[in-house]
């Protein structure tokens, strides 16, 4: 059991981390890239009518649950009206009421829609429908047509589409031609189709859809037919026989009832306007998470105050930097001063940028070392000497800032975030190594520290990684698992392959 303890832990941590990550990406559509934009549609229904006296009641059908789309936000603009929303089958009804409207009345309903993959969700089978009462000659024509179509189809869905196609391309004097007296009016055609499908006892219904065309202010609703294939409602276009909605069609209302009903009003009309907008994908995902009530977003870093968020944007990168240190030290074998000093240096590089950071770091450490060697002559005790070095380091930083400000290098002003105590300790450690092991060791380790810091900075300053770790902090579990895995690495370090490579001559002297 003990042997498997660590592997199990590693697998468990990565599974949890990647699982939550996958859920957030796939189900909540959280963006993987920073600054990603999500497409949203703003649909506006504009109702206009002339009151004809007395209390009016405006009833507008509005969507409840849209296949393929999520309703992120909605709003009603209706001054002086009482507003009620009622459930009505698969839709809702917005009911505006007022006692005495004067002059032309305009009401608005706005919905922000967000496209989210394909929805093939199942719906309960309403059961076979009753056969409508046909009158001759329709009766025999209907029966013959149904018989014929049944022979040429395999299931409910193909039956429906064959039927639609037959009606669309009906030659004169065929059984189908009897039913196409509607001159291609989709609504009438859809109603005929519903009756014909009912003859075959197949449930079907009319839906009102809106094609989403950016910038159009006069979108006319289209009629589609939905046929239940015992598992779900399959959309079929009543004229073309096309199955499934195209990408840019949204279902607005179900059933044959009119979308708009106005009592005590004249010249009632409804107009749909659509505009596309691009929003921050992260904010969209958040709002979407609210609509589906995802509890996981309550514990998101995005819920924190902005200042705290910015702190965590930096802090969440530290484990990554630490893992890089583990990798560079234990797998590559680079020597550094202090274990995690390079991470802190890398953090300060975020402010100064890499090149300026390296130059400043080298400058301060070199000047500090000089001062430290001078202090050696004064024979101070350890802690006072460290304190003196800290003071000198800060004075050096101040001097560099003032000088560079005068010279116009504003970048060097970001120096204040350099961890000066860490710098002082580095200078102290470096001077001890310098004295005890010679300058070459000290310089090698100093360069090693800088290389590691630069590598850590390269990753920690990466906006993509920062975004990933901030939006998906569960990835830290994966990082933890990788660090644990690295902790068990007992193979050779890369530098050892060179170190022992050089002694291969010595190794062979016995053979």
């Amino acid at each position, binding site marked *: 059991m003990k042997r498997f303890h660590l592997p199990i832990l590693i697998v468990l941590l990565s599974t949890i981390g990647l699982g939550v990550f996958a859920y957030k990406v796939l189900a909540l559509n959280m963006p993987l890239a920073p600054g990603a934009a999500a497409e949203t549609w703003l649909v506006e229904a504009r109702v206009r009518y002339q009151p004809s006296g007395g209390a009016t009641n405006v009833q507008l059908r509005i969507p409840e649950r849209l296949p393929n789309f999520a309703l992120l936000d909605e709003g009603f603009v209706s001054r002086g009206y009482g507003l009620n929303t009622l459930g009505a089958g698969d839709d809702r009804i917005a009911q505006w009421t007022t006692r005495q409207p004067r002059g032309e009345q305009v009401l608005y309903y706005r919905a922000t829609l967000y496209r989210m993959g394909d929805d093939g969700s199942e719906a309960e089978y309403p059961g076979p429908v009753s056969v409508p009462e046909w009158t001759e000659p329709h009766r025999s024509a209907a029966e013959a047509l149904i018989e014929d179509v049944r022979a040429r189809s395999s299931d409910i869905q193909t039956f429906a589409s064959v039927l639609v196609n037959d009606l669309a391309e009906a030659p004169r004097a065929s059984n189908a031609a009897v039913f196409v007296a509607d001159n291609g009016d989709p609504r009438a055609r859809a109603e005929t189709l519903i009756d014909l499908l009912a003859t075959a006892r197949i449930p079907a219904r009319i839906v009102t859809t809106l094609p989403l065309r950016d910038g159009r202010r006069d979108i006319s609703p289209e009629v589609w037919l939905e046929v239940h294939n015992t598992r779900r409602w399959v959309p079929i276009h009543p004229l073309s026989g096309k199955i499934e909605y195209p990408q840019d069609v949204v279902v607005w209302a179900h059933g044959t009832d009119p979308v708009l009903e106005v009592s005590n009003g004249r010249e009632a009309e409804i107009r749909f306007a659509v505009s596309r907008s691009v929003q921050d994908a992260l904010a969209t995902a958040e709002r979407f998470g609210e609509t589906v009530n995802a509890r996981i977003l309550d514990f998101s870093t995005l819920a924190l105050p902005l200042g705290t968020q910015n702190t965590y944007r930096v802090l969440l990168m530290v484990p990554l930097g630490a893992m890089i240190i583990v990798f560079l030290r234990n797998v590559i074998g680079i020597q550094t001063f202090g274990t995690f000093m390079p991470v802190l240096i890398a953090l300060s590089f975020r402010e100064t940028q890499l090149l300026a950071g390296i130059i400043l770091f080298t400058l301060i450490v070199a000047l500090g070392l000089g001062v430290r060697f001078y202090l050696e002559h004064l024979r101070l005790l350890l802690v006072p000497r460290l304190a003196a070095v800290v003071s000198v380091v800060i004075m050096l930083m101040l001097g560099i800032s003032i000088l560079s400000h005068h010279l116009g290098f504003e970048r060097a002003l970001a120096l204040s975030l350099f961890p000066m105590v860490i710098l002082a300790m580095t200078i102290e450690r470096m001077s001890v190594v310098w004295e005890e092991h010679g300058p070459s060791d000290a310089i090698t380790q100093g360069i090693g520290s800088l290389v590691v810091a630069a590598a850590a900075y390269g990753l920690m300053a990466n906006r993509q990684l920062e975004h990933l770790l901030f939006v998906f902090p569960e990835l830290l579990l994966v990082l933890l698992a990788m660090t644990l895995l690295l902790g068990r690495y007992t193979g050779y370090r890369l530098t050892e392959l060179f170190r022992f*490579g050089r002694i291969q001559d010595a190794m062979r002297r*016995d053979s």
Partner: protein
Amino acid sequence: MPGWLPRFVRPRVLKEQGIVGMNARNARYIAAWNARRFYPRVDNKLQTKQLALDAGLSVPELYGVVRTHRQIREIRRELRQHEQGFVIKPAHGAAGDGILVIDGWRGDRPRRAGSRTLELSELDDHISNILSGMYSLGGHPDVAMIEQRVRFSSVFDAVAHQGVPDIRTVVYRGYPVMAMIRLPTHESDGKANLHQGAVGTGIDLASGRTTGGVHHNQPCRNHPDSEHSLVGLQIPGWEALMELAAGCFELSQLGYLGVDVVIDAERGPLILELNARPGLAIQIANGEGLDHRIRTVDAHLEAGTTEAATERARWSGTTFARPAASGDPAAATRTQFGLS
């Protein structure tokens, strides 16, 4: 190919040679066999010395301990008595840092080994630096030890430039597995650090003869300063040294232990210090990996034998004998599998 050029070797070759890497050492030897609670026994040299004395193992004589800055003045008077010199070292020093060797007096001023005469105040400063923790791990306040200066056996006169030739033995679970002698050179400034140009020389565990050295990662048969041969140099009191090294297991309880020994002209081998994290340069000096020898010890201990230090030292001597040095054909077949 010039020695300074980086040369790459495939991991498989190293594995066949039994070379142990840093990670493997940390995980398989140190983490597995060295319990944290025993570290103070070796990290605190004062405690090591006391334990060694209790166990009857030879160490350089302790002249005095300085614990506070006030004691510095008091000890200064006593120091003058030690005409033969003395050594000041931090009790918690690492890697030989902070060791000051005084080999005598010129008038009232101490003379640093192989260097100039110091002011007495410089001694005070050095002790004071030690007390404030300059050489200890983590900068903790430390204690300065003043002990007998070892007068090295004359065997090393021709091959040790100024400094301290010390013998490092790696003891695995009580069995000495590999040994080397580090000889300071002019280039290394009297320091026994291979990295700084000291010569490392492997030692045949059976006979105590050197097997030829490595200088700057290149095999060398002669000392770079004196041109004296480095092969076949007999270390005096080798058997005693092996027993001393093996005996350090009991006093430290560390399964992977480095024992640093110096040879005093009169007293023979003395334990200088113990190391809980001995490095891997010993493999370079010996031109051989540690891994095969360590596996041999593991296999030997599989049987559940418990042996006293003397027997362990003898077992190691016969098992890890070098074919070239001892001329024992049986031993040759035993060790050669790790070499070619």
